[in-house]
C-alpha cells in the first residue's frame, strides 16, 4: 500500500507519540466539509423536475407578494429609492441567515451515523451547513442580479464591499448555528424556540422596511444594535442607494455594538461547540 520509505516515516512519527499533522488535519476538515456540503446541495431537490431551481422559488415568490403588499397597500416604499431591490437583497440575505441557523439546529443529530462511526471534528457539520447555504446564495444571486438590472439598478464599484458583508453575515449565522446545534444535542427545546426567534428577528431586522427614515429616531440606535439590521442598513447604501446614510453615519461610535455582537456570537458559538465536541458522539 505504501512504499517502504513511507512506512519508515510513519514509524518515526509513531515514536514521537501521536503527532497529528495540523495541515493534513485542516485539509481533511475542509475536504469533508466540502464533500458533505456539495452532496447535501445536490440531494436537496433530488428527484424534482426543476431541481436546484426550486431554491429560487421561495425567496422570489415571497418577494412578489411582499412587493405588492408593501408598496401598493402599506406604501412603505415612499421616500425609499429602489425599494424593490432593497427588499430583494434583504430577503435573500435573511433567507441565507435563517437557512444556516435553522438547518444547523438539528444537524448534529441528523448526522448521528457519521459521528458515531468515524473520527472527525464535529465542527465539519455546521460548517457544511453554512457552505451549502452559501452555494444556494450564490445561485440566488445570479437571479437577483438579473432582477436588479431589470429594475434599473446596475452593479457599481461599491458592490465589492458585498463579499465583506456576506462574510459578516456568515460569521454571525455560523456562530449562532454552532451554538444552537451543540445545545440541541442536550435540549430538544432549541428547535421550537429558534423557530419563534427567527420569526421575531425577521420583523425586527428591517427586511421589509428601512432603518432610515422609517424607524423613528428615538428607537433607531437600539434598533441598529441588531447586527442584521445594521448590515442591511449598510447593504442599502452599498447596493441600491448611494445617497442613503451609512450605518457609521447613523450610529457613530455605537456601530461597535453590532460589530461586537457578531464577533461575540461567533466566538461564543465556537467556544461552546469546541467545548462540547469531544462528547457529542456519545450524547447523541
Amino acid at each position, binding site marked *: *500500500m*505504501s512504499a517502504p520509505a*513511507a*512506512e519508515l516515516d*510513519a*514509524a518515526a*512519527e*509513531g*515514536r514521537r*507519540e*501521536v503527532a497529528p499533522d495540523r495541515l493534513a488535519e485542516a*485539509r*481533511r476538515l475542509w*475536504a*469533508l466539509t*466540502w*464533500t*458533505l456540503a456539495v*452532496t447535501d446541495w*445536490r*440531494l436537496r431537490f*433530488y*428527484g424534482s423536475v426543476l431541481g436546484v431551481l426550486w431554491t429560487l422559488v421561495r425567496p422570489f415568490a415571497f418577494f412578489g407578494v411582499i412587493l405588492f403588499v408593501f408598496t401598493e397597500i402599506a406604501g412603505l416604499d415612499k421616500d425609499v429609492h429602489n425599494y424593490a431591490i432593497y427588499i430583494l437583497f434583504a430577503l435573500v440575505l435573511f433567507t441565507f441567515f435563517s437557512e444556516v441557523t435553522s438547518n444547523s439546529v438539528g444537524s448534529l443529530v441528523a448526522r448521528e*451515523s*457519521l*459521528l*458515531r*462511526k*468515524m*473520527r*472527525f471534528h464535529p465542527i465539519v457539520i455546521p460548517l457544511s451547513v453554512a457552505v451549502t447555504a452559501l452555494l444556494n446564495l450564490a445561485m440566488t444571486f445570479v437571479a437577483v442580479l438579473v432582477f436588479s438590472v431589470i429594475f434599473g439598478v446596475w452593479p457599481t464599484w461599491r458592490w465589492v464591499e458585498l463579499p465583506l458583508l456576506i462574510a459578516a453575515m456568515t460569521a454571525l449565522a455560523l456562530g449562532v448555528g454552532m451554538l444552537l446545534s451543540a445545545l440541541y444535542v*442536550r*435540549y*430538544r*427545546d432549541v428547535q421550537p424556540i429558534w423557530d419563534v426567534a427567527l420569526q421575531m428577528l425577521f420583523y425586527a431586522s428591517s427586511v421589509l422596511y428601512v432603518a432610515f427614515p422609517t424607524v423613528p429616531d428615538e428607537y433607531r440606535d437600539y434598533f441598529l444594535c441588531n447586527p442584521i439590521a445594521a448590515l442591511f442598513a449598510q447593504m442599502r447604501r452599498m447596493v441600491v442607494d448611494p445617497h442613503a446614510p451609512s450605518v457609521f453615519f447613523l450610529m457613530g461610535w455605537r456601530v461597535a455594538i453590532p460589530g461586537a455582537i457578531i464577533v461575540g456570537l461567533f466566538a461564543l458559538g465556537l467556544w461552546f461547540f469546541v467545548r462540547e465536541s*469531544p*462528547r457529542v*458522539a*456519545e450524547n447523541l
Partner: protein
Amino acid sequence: MSGAVLAKSEQRGLRLAPEPPAVEIDHVSKTFRLPRQRYSTLKERALHPLRAMQYDELHALNDVHVSIAPGEFFGIVGRNGSGKSTLLKILAGIYRADAGRVAVHGRLSPFIELGVGFNPDLAARDNIVINAVMMGLSRREAKARTEAVIEFAELQEFAELKLKNYSSGMAVRLGFATAIQVDADVLLVDEVLAVGDAGFQQKCFEEFTRLKAAGKTVVFVTHDMHATERFCDRAMLIERGDVLRIGEPREIARAYNELNFGRLVHGAPDSARYGDQRACEILDAWFERDGRRTSEVAQHERVAMAFRVRFHERVAEPVFGFSLRNDVGHTFFATTTEQRAMRTGTFEPGEDVTVRIEVDGVMSPTRYELSPSVARAGTGADTLDLREDLASLHVHGTVVTGGLVDLPHEFEIVRG
C-alpha cells in the same frame, strides 16, 4: 498448529522488541450515564431546578489493559453489548475514555465501519468519493482511485446505479473495496464479514492476508470465530466490559463459544421429552473432550458423547441410543445399541449407568444437539425416556467446506 502460531508470535516479538507497541490501551474504563428521562426539556429543568438529574450508570468498560504490537492482528470478541464496539470507538477517538489512556503510534484509520457516509440516492461512483474522503483521502486521490475500487468490488456494470438499488452484499463489497484504499498503519475494523457472498468473503480474507504481510496492525472486532482463528495473532474476550481473557485465538474462540453456547443450554427451557420415565430416567447428557465435559471442540478433534441413566425398575436389555442434530435440525447421526446388535445386560432399581460413545472428528463446524434415549428391548419403539436436545456442542474451525461432514480422505490424481 498452535505450536506454529506460538513460534510465529515469539519470532515477531523478538524482531520487533525495540519498537513501541502500535496500540496501547492503558487501564481504560468507560461509563455511560443514561438519564432516566431521555429527553430533558428546559421546562422540566425550570420547574425542578433543584432536582438533580438522575442517571443510570452503564459500565461499558472496566479497566481494560492491553498493548498491541506493530503488525499484529488483534481480535476483540465478545457477545452483543459486551463493550467491544465501545472499545473500538475509544480507540478511534470517537468516544473518550473516562479513565485510563489510549495511545496509537502510527496513522490510524479513522473509521470503524464500512461505507460510512454512503448515500442511497447517489450512484456508486459518487459514494466511493464521499466514503474515501471520509476516510481521509483528498478529493483528487479519491477520484483517481474510483476505478480501482469499482474493479476490486467487481461492480463495473453497476457503477452508475444508485446505491439504494444495490443489495446489501453489494454495498458491503463497495464499502470494503473503498476501505482498503485508505493509507493507515493501524486499521480498526468492526464486523466486516457479516454480509457478502462466499466469493467476496474469500477476497476479503486474501486482502487481510495481504495487510498482514504488509505489516499493518489490525484491530478486529467480530463474532466470527472462524475468522478470529484464521487471521488473528492474539485475541481478547470481553464480557460486560471486563476482559475475561487475552491469548491465542484458538483458546479465545473456545472460551467465547463456551460463554455463548454453554450459557444458552443452561438457560434453555426443558425440551421435548418422551416416555413416562417410570422404569428409568435420563439424568444428564454431555459431550466430552479428552475425558472432560465440554460444550465445544475444534474441528477434527475427537469427541465423546455420554448420558447418565437412573433405573427405577428392573429392566432387561434396554436399548440405549444417541441422536445428533445439526443447527438446521437435520439428524446428522444416530445410533442405538440395538442397531449395533449389542447386548446391554439387566439393570436393577436404583442403579445408575453412564452410556458413552466416542466418534472421530468428522463434524463440520456448526452447532449440534444431542438427544439421548432409552427404550425397552423389542421393537425399540417402546420409549422409556427420550430427551431431545439435552446437550449441545459447538464445533469451531477455520475451514467451512459447505459439506456436512469432513470425511477422512486422500486425493489421487491419475493422468492419462
